């Protein structure tokens, strides 16, 4: 005789448990972690390199690089002098908490103030898996068009800050900034939008100042960020 038993368990609870362990480890070492998400080619690594450069002497930045394959990005970050661990997901479309946990154990956490986690290039899946990060940030870029918030609402809704990269290309493309801002605000009332160009350096100061603000010991710690 079949019987029905109640379960009522979140499907990603196993991931969430490990994410909570990651968060605890980060807090113990006083590291603020930022999950950086974007489509492929939006400029995640370029923004990370610029950020390391701009924060030199102010904060020690560590990096976790998530890619399907290769260590091209990790090599670029290592050249910039930051401690870095490359995760290859082997086809996986997003980072998950267990992968980040193993990467955390390979980083000198006591030397790091700010950990930038570059997620796999994808506007859909990364947002579904919490990693233990304090803040979620996404990069949108001018060539991908102003309609992305309408097409990929979940990520735009979930982030604490948004970077609009490649502003130097604005004169050459039909990107409607007003439509973009409105579509973002429909999903996310509060996230600051930083308009930058990693190529020219325009706008990066405001982004870096925001990051420093989030990394200050008095803010961003212990909440759900």
């Amino acid at each position, binding site marked *: 005789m079949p019987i029905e038993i*109640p*379960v009522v*368990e979140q*499907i*990603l*609870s196993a991931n969430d448990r490990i994410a909570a362990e990651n968060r605890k480890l980060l807090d113990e070492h006083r590291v603020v972690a930022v999950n950086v998400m974007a489509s492929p080619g939006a400029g995640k690594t370029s923004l990370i390199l610029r950020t390391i450069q701009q924060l030199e002497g102010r904060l020690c930045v560590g990096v976790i690089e998530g890619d399907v394959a290769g260590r091209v990005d990790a090599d670029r970050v290592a050249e910039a002098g930051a401690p870095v661990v490359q995760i290859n997901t082997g086809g996986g479309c997003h980072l*998950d908490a267990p992968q980040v946990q193993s990467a955390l154990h390979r980083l000198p956490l006591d030397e790091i103030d700010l950990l930038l986690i570059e997620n796999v290039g994808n506007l859909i899946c990364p947002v579904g898996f919490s990693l233990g990060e304090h803040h979620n940030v996404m990069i949108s870029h001018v060539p991908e068009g102003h309609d992305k918030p309408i097409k990929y609402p979940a990520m735009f809704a979930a982030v604490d800050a948004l970077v609009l990269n490649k502003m130097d290309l604005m004169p050459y493309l039909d990107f409607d900034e007003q439509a973009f801002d409105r579509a973002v605000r429909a999903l996310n009332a509060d996230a600051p939008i930083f308009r930058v160009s990693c190529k020219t350096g325009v706008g990066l100061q405001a982004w870096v100042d925001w990051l420093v603000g989030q990394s200050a010991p008095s803010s961003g710690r212990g909440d759900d960020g």
Partner: protein
Amino acid sequence: MHELAVTQSILDIASRHAHKAGAQRILAIHLVIGELTGLVDESIQFYFDFLAKDTLAQGARLCFTHVAARLRCSVCGGEYPPPASRVWACPHCDALGGKTIAGREFSVASIEIE
């Protein structure tokens, strides 16, 4: 989306509860899936048939309960479904930034065993 990883979690959760209850077999798994999770039933079923082979859950039925997305306007308090292919503005007062109140559900509700 990432149905393979998700399906493995579904199987793990169902198997753990079935073992605990001393089940011989899992006949069905009831899932609650919100519209905003972007998960596709057929894709979960496809991976499930593959992953559940030679487990307690081989041949189990997956029963999906879908929850439609709903937003609540932070200005007028009105509730509305997210408009397809348009900016998610409140249809009552045109305000932006409504809070998602349904559509992110993602759980195993129950299992049927024998």
